[in-house]
């Protein structure tokens, strides 16, 4: 936009940009540099000591007994969560894509878990998943299934957290899928109908291929967020029982803010970052095999 006075322009640019720029510099860029520096240090915040360690933090983490466990638990979470969230959000979006009475209400209903805080959701689901009187096991018993004591079982704690997360997140991703469904040209379905294609055929030959770019986005985002699962774990199990649900962010949080080992925590977060990066790059590599970009 044209401004007659160059001075006004310079001042205005500085004034408007300053708050955000200072914020990004101090709370985003500087921390990246600091975190990188700390990851090579033995930095005990309580003692106030900082000694150079080189790569020892990384070595200690990667060769320790804890790391494979943490990796396994995080990947278990992701492996259970990812297919469930894809199927559920796709299903919900397909329901919302039809016009019927009460559709607006249904949209609000589906979105309610999304606006609920993770703390409230985790508190409610801790009760839902409780062994004898919880909603989940009472519902299961209607089908003659004796449910486990979810969150206090080494095997079932993680699936319990996953179910909660799917319940909470489905509405959010369903909206993204719905937006993609709406952009599919109706003429394609008409043409397929004239050619005699049935509902299932239309779904697998038109809907699903045209949704793959959105599904790809969903997978990428969910892998990034899933590897950083935290709130649910901390409130529902605190990494337990017996360390059965320790995950990356929970470890980083405890190293940093329960033991004040800032160097270890920093190194751990860089390892997590590299894992996230590797997964994301891998997915962009593999996308040619299943994502369809010619609409």
């Amino acid at each position, binding site marked *: 936009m*044209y401004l007659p006075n160059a001075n006004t322009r310079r001042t205005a640019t500085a004034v408007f940009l300053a708050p*955000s720029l200072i914020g990004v510099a101090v709370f985003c860029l500087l921390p990246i540099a600091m975190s990188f520096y700390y990851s090579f240090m033995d930095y005990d915040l309580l003692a106030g000591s900082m000694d150079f360690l080189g790569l020892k933090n990384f070595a200690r983490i990667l060769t320790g007994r804890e790391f494979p466990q943490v990796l396994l638990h995080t990947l278990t979470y992701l492996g259970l969560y990812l297919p469930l969230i894809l199927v559920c959000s796709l299903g919900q979006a397909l329901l919302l894509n039809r016009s019927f009475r009460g559709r607006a209400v*249904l949209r609000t209903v589906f979105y309610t878990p999304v606006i609920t*805080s993770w703390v409230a959701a985790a*508190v409610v689901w801790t009760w839902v998943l409780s062994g004898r009187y919880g909603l989940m096991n009472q519902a299961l018993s209607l089908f003659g299934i004796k449910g486990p004591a979810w969150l206090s079982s080494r095997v079932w704690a993680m699936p319990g957290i996953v179910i909660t997360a799917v319940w909470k997140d489905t509405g959010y991703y369903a909206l993204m899928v719905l937006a993609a469904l709406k952009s599919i040209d109706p003429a394609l379905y008409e043409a397929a109908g004239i050619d005699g294609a049935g509902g299932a055929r239309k779904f697998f030959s038109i809907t699903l291929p045209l949704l793959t770019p959105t599904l790809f986005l969903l997978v990428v985002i969910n892998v990034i967020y899933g590897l950083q699962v935290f709130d649910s774990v901390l409130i529902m199990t605190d990494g337990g029982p017996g360390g059965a649900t320790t995950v990356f962010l929970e470890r980083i949080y405890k190293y*940093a803010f329960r033991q004040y080992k800032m160097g270890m925590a920093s190194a751990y*977060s860089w390892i997590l970052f590299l894992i996230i990066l590797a997964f994301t790059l891998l997915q962009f590599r593999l996308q040619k095999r299943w994502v369809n970009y010619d609409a």
Partner: protein
Amino acid sequence: MMPKLRAKQLRNAAFYVMVVLMAALTLLPFLFMLSSSFKGSEAIRTIPIRWIPERPTLEGYIRVFNMPGFSFGRASLNSLFLALATTLVQVLSACMAAFVFAKLPFRGLGKLFGLYLATMMIPGTVTMVPNYIILRIMGLLDSYTGLILPALANAFGVFLMRQAMITVPDSYLESAMLDGASLYRVFLVILLPMVAPTFFTLVLLAFMGAWNSYLWPLIVLTSTGKQTLQVVLGNMNSMYRNNEHVLMAGAVLTILPILLVYVLSQCRVDSGIALGGLK
């Protein structure tokens, strides 16, 4: 003709069954919470579940405000204040920066914008520990200023607002300036109203994010009187596991305000979030 019609009816029936099933799966945990919150500590433990409490009581709601070691009422006010303040800081700084990115280009601005986008890819995990230490150095730990300040770094908000502002024709702003309005006036009175839908989307996302946030307030605020609702509820959950009716009352009170805000502004959020595509 007949069999075709029947197939269609069958499909319709199947559709409605799915709708009811999905809605029930979504709502049942909320109903379970609501029903439990109006019961006594004995009455919540029944098989089968009594959805309508036999003797409804407000015991849970009264006790949640009087749990030893916690101050739920204080925390509610803290959360409200912090959510409003964080929203103001976050939205204002993002809109101001977006104005420059959209309307006041200078050399190197493209690169700066690239840098902003790149910061969106850095996981919060990496910046969390150093941000804590930065606040410690600044002496802002356990203070609201410290909690709110990092909201200045909001690349997503800048991106969202820039995309909206770029669609406003320069001529509107220029003609206002010819009429003698200052640049600051043009920004507040002409530009922001013209991008109102996106603006309100950002306000809502910021408010919901601030109200619901857990990890950052958990780390920064240590004195009991300053803690937020989410942190207090989270701590109660680990200390009073067997008082589910109290916890459920707490959960209801935590969800209610945000639900109200959401329902009141629903249409705006829906379109906005699909557009943003990011949490």
